């Protein structure tokens, strides 16, 4: 029985199993995709979604199980075979070459004449784009494009190869609300033109509005497949989390009428980027104790540099920086640490930890002079390890031991390590830059809970984020930055998500 019976099935997986050293990524997975259908795969990070998709895309073969395409059994040993069978994967991390043009990216690896006729190919791509509503300029370089445009190039890339089955791996994770809306329209166009789509996401709202069917994956196993109308968001969330109750973000609320003092006040701060061009343009900002100020913006609009100015990494060119009533003039990093500043950097792997050192050593960073780690004269390794074990327990950091290299931990565990280190001192002000980006539901809930708890105890927090759900969940007050300028500023109660999305992209809202 090597053929599938149902003629409507464009793709069928039977009993797919894949093991990596130390973990079973997929365990006897069955999955079907019908013609013209949007079938969503729902699951946390590490549930095995990417492994499954990579096998369909031909990056590596399954250990056991069969893949059928249009009823025919296939065995992929490399990605090209998958592409030739009409499968196209749009990766979450774009597989684009930044130094190349749109056209060069799209035609790379496709059969072309030896001498490239760029004019003809540009025209082909323009027409293909128009057909699906994917408008891009073929001659532009990728580095000149916005994230939304880059994604369109990714989609065009697979359509140009004649893909009929598209795999979209968390496509809206990096998009603004407006860009997401545009993407939904493009998806609708593709379905209309007889493509079938596997959609991977954990945003419940879009899953419920787009999908025809929904399959829930947890720890490598299929838990259930639903037809959209026969289920609802709560039920799905519960199954996805492995039947644990969705943890509410309940924290003891601050005592009423607690005095909110001004912790930080910026007036007309200007600063340059590494190349010497102005990146911050007269930025005003005010943060009070016991308050989370959310800073929304598309990344690259000066948020990173603002965080660096605040933490003393980057010098400011002009403006005034007042911290607890004291006017700071060119503070250094150690000044700011001494003043109780904590910093969760955006690129946590590069700037948040020393990847080749152990977890225990990472806790010591910036606290290396603390006498509690010392014996008579020298560092006491036992004390250091003991301390690390306590912190790992407290922050639920999962690793083989405190001697494990920090760099091999998952994103969630790295973030918890950083948070544990930063909060081990008495903090007065915390900068958290994209603290939950790429984390799974459990880690996200944990990190958010710790931050909210600290806030209720009087910490002032600057939360830099692109994720508007997080922004609204966490913030008390919202600022929006665009092109190095603050373009909006309002209490959370007065903000709405569409308006913020527009401001982020530079549309002025009256």
């Amino acid at each position, binding site marked *: 029985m090597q053929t599938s019976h149902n003629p409507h099935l464009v793709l069928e997986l039977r009993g797919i199993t894949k093991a990596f050293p130390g973990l079973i990524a997929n365990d006897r997975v069955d999955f079907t995709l019908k013609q013209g259908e949007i079938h969503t795969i729902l699951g946390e990070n590490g549930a095995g979604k990417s492994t499954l998709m990579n096998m369909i895309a031909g990056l590596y073969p399954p250990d056991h199980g069969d893949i059928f395409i249009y009823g025919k059994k296939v065995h992929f040993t490399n990605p090209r075979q998958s*592409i030739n069978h009409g499968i196209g994967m749009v*990766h979450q991390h774009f597989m684009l070459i930044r*130094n190349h043009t749109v056209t060069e990216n799209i*035609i790379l690896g496709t059969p*072309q004449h030896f001498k490239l006729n760029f004019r003809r190919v540009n025209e082909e791509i323009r027409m293909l784009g128009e057909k699906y509503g994917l408008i891009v300029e073929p001659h532009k370089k990728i580095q000149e494009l916005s994230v939304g445009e880059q994604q369109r190039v990714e989609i065009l890339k697979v359509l140009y190869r004649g893909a009929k089955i598209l795999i979209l791996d968390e496509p809206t994770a990096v998009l603004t609300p407006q860009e997401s809306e545009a993407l939904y329209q493009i998806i609708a166009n593709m379905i209309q033109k007889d493509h079938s789509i596997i959609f991977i996401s954990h945003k419940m709202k879009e899953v419920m509005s787009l999908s025809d069917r929904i399959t829930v994956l947890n720890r490598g196993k299929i838990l259930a497949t639903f037809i959209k109308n026969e289920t609802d968001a709560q039920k799905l969330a519960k199954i996805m989390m492995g039947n644990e109750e969705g943890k509410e973000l309940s924290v003891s609320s601050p005592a009423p009428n607690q005095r909110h003092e001004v912790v930080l006040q910026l007036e007309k701060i200007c600063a340059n980027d590494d190349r010497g061009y102005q990146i911050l343009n007269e930025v005003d900002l005010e943060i009070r104790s016991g308050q989370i100020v959310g800073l929304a913006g598309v990344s690259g609009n000066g948020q990173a540099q603002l965080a660096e100015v605040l933490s003393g990494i980057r010098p400011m060119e002009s403006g005034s920086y007042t911290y607890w009533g004291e006017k700071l003039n060119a503070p250094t990093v150690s000044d700011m640490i001494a003043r109780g500043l904590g910093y969760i950097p955006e690129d946590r792997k590069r700037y948040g930890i020393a990847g080749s050192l152990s977890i225990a050593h990472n806790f010591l960073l910036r606290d290396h002079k603390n006498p509690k780690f010392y014996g008579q004269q020298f560092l006491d390794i036992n004390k250091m390890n003991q301390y690390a074990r306590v912190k790992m327990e407290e922050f639920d950091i999962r690793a083989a031991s405190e001697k494990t290299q920090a760099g091999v931990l998952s994103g969630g565990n790295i973030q918890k390590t950083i948070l544990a280190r930063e909060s081990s001192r008495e903090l007065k002000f915390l900068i958290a830059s994209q603290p939950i980006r790429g984390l799974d539901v459990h880690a996200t809930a944990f990190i958010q809970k710790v931050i909210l708890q600290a806030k209720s105890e009087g910490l002032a927090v600057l939360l830099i984020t692109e994720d508007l759900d997080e922004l609204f969940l966490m913030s008390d007050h919202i600022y929006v930055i665009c092109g190095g300028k603050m373009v909006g500023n309002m209490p959370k109660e007065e903000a709405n998500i569409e308006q913020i999305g527009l401001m982020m992209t530079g549309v002025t809202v009256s």
Partner: protein
Amino acid sequence: MEWIVLVMIAAIKMGTPLLFGTLGGVISERGGVINLGMEGLMLVGALTAFVVDLNLNSKFAAMVFAAMAAGLVTTIHAIVCISLRANQIASGLALALFGGGLSGLFGDSLVGKTVESLNNLPIPGLSAIPAIGPIFFNQDIMVYFSYFCVVLIWFILFKTTLGLNIRSMGEAPDVCDALGLSVFRYRYGCVIVGGMLIGIGGAYFPLVLTSFWVDNLTAGRGWIAVALVIFAFWHPFKALLGAYLFGAAIALQLRVQTMGIAIPSYFLEMFPYILTIVVLTMVTIRNNKRGVSVMPAALGLAFFRGEKH
């Protein structure tokens, strides 16, 4: 003004081995593999060319064998860097020392012998143009071949499918792999073809510049070519410009020496190398200011497939 033309004629001659070397480096590095072994490869090419010319009395055969010998030695670099994924810097440095030692060992008995120098071959018509003619079109056939290589490599890199694939290998081998292109095949090709060109650059020394063999014949020109690849922004036309600029520096230095001006000859010999440092620093500063990176993004990085992140 006559002496400027003379210096420029010499500049082209001095610049030609640099140009071949730089072009070889450009091909290799566009594919994503650094080749610091140029000095060693040039020496291997030089010795092979000298031996073949001495025995077969054929410049053409000398050039072909020089390319093949250097290509063979670079294959070691390719295996170490691409298949075994070792550090490209370390492998390149080892190659430079290995090539130097190897050529010294086998060349020892040849010191003192001479071959005939390659004749100039004026191109009818073009060579009659004042100044330009004698400088560019009254040269030997290897110089003309280098012009041809510049144009050919430019055309392949920027106008053909093959070139797009090569450039993509240097930028993002993981993307190429996901699209079904063989990273191994392209990178091996780039490194070996690049090595062959570098070998031809080496062959230019005994066939044209010196006519004899001594130990360490290339005298560090291979290292200048390494720097020129960066100076040229990995572009064949700029490689031509850079090679002749440094060729001019070398020619000028030789001329000043023969004029008997009282500057120590050691200082004059330092001049092209000091120029290398100064020019590279300036280029780097300017690039940082503009915030453009023209360096292939995956240069120097070994490629691993299908790793779970």
